[in-house]
């Protein structure tokens, strides 16, 4: 059969691309007979483009081929044959990527939501949900999860990160009302809680509704509270004040238990806060053990910089102590151990394995 240039090949040159499909994406496309999957390429001109499906993000990488790949289709001529539509010298590779959500924190600085700042709204700059969703290199599902994890409210279509102090206040109020109204924390009517907070504490209904949804599941108007998540957040709220002055472990635990109240006292455990505190044991005495607030979210994302900062904070770490501070930059424990091998030196002493800096950053 004849192989010809298509009659429009000079206009069409460059209008084709080849995209290498990972198996799961291939399945998605092939199964899309009538339900078209939502795919898009996202990115600002200054960023590397990513491809987003409904719930995943892939980074795009162009691979140059030494060979030519011809895209050919059936000819429209009566004589049959095959038309060359385009000649390509590259394919685009897709690599699964972590959604680039950390940008949000910077974009939303100064837009925090705190109690009683309704008046401030008018003079504030705005950053809308739509705008952020379009500018963030993440799929829709990852973006919504990211808002939830970062405790960002959507108020009248605008993004407002809630201040930690105000969040703690709301959670404490919720816990108190669960008890005083005699509601079960596994099936509490959302409407009743939201109205109570709105009437008695002037907390806007949409704020409470979103907070409730962050800390548990709402099903048919009933809230099943995630006790661990609420307890953790309240613990963080207390610990956050002790970034510079350490608090004694015993005092902290007592205050934490008192704040969550009798019904959730049992949930309180220091391990809930792992990755957020440093334990300082001074001079062998257990009573002197103190805690300081040290959130891993405040550390650099880049592994080398993170290790440098960790070893500046402490010259040596036990492995169980350092691990919580690495979990958010390593996908799994294997990746984490790789990082430890690369950036730290393991020393086996009588008390177990200690990690120290591979290069001394101090001098």
């Amino acid at each position, binding site marked *: 059969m004849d192989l010809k240039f*298509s009659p429009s090949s000079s*206009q069409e040159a460059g209008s084709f691309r080849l995209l*290498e*499909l990972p198996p799961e994406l291939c399945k998605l496309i092939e199964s*899309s007979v009538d339900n078209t999957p939502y795919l*898009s*390429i996202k990115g600002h001109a200054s960023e590397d483009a990513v491809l987003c499906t409904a719930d995943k993000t892939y980074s795009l990488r162009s691979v140059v081929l030494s060979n030519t790949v*011809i895209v050919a289709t059936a000819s429209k001529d009566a004589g049959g044959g095959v038309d060359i539509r385009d000649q390509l010298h590259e394919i685009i590779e897709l690599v699964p990527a972590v959604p680039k959500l950390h940008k949000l924190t910077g974009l939303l600085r100064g837009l925090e939501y705190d109690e009683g700042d309704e008046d401030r709204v008018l003079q504030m700059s705005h950053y809308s949900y739509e705008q952020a969703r379009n500018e963030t290199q993440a799929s829709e599902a990852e973006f919504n999860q990211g808002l939830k994890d970062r405790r960002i409210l959507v108020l009248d279509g605008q993004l407002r990160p809630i201040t930690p102090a105000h969040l703690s206040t709301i959670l404490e109020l919720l816990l108190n009302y669960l008890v005083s109204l005699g509601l079960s924390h596994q099936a509490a009517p959302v409407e009743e809680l939201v109205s109570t907070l709105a009437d008695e504490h002037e907390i806007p209904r949409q704020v409470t509704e979103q907070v409730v949804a962050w800390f548990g599941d709402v099903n048919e108007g009933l809230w099943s509270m995630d006790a661990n998540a609420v307890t953790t957040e309240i613990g963080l709220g207390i610990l956050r004040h002790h970034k510079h002055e350490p608090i004694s472990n015993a005092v902290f635990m007592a205050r934490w238990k008192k704040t969550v109240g009798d019904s959730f006292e049992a949930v309180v455990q220091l391990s809930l806060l792992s990755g957020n505190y440093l334990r300082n044991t001074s001079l062998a005495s257990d009573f002197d053990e103190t805690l300081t607030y040290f959130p891993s979210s405040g550390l650099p994302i880049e592994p080398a910089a993170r290790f440098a900062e960790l070893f500046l904070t402490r010259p040596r770490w036990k492995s169980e102590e350092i691990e919580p501070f690495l979990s958010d930059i390593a996908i799994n424990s294997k990746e984490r151990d790789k990082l430890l091998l690369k950036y730290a030196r393991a020393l086996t002493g009588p008390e177990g394995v200690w990690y120290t800096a591979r290069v001394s950053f101090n001098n």
Partner: protein
Amino acid sequence: MIVPISVSTKNDNPTLPPSLARLGNDELCLIELQGSLDVECNESCDRDGRLVGKLNVDNPDKPTLLIGHHLLEGKIANLPKPLGVLQRNTGSQDSEVVPDAQEKPRGEPRADLNVSTGWTIKAVVKKKIVFSKRPMPITNLNRKP
């Protein structure tokens, strides 16, 4: 910026001859050549519609491509990963569009093109025809097509 990608693998385009459709897609196939087709012409549109050569895939083990006095022998290879073939959406679909003299689609799409920019996955291809050997000169070329 968001560039939407749609999927439309079932179109009413003419279908490929059955010997090529066996490669898994009945509207589109990929042919890989070592080197590239270099066409000498003054205007790039001169080559439009011109004959390149004869492709023969009747024997699936040994596809051949005859270009001028050169015969290429190839094979049908499975792609390590399936490839999606993307086509840029043009304003008024298909080939009848008048070419915009300035449009050079390589690289970043220009801002003013964004309105119509978008890509469509035309096909998912899992096999290709590869011509990787050196061409063999054919001397006793018959005049018959």
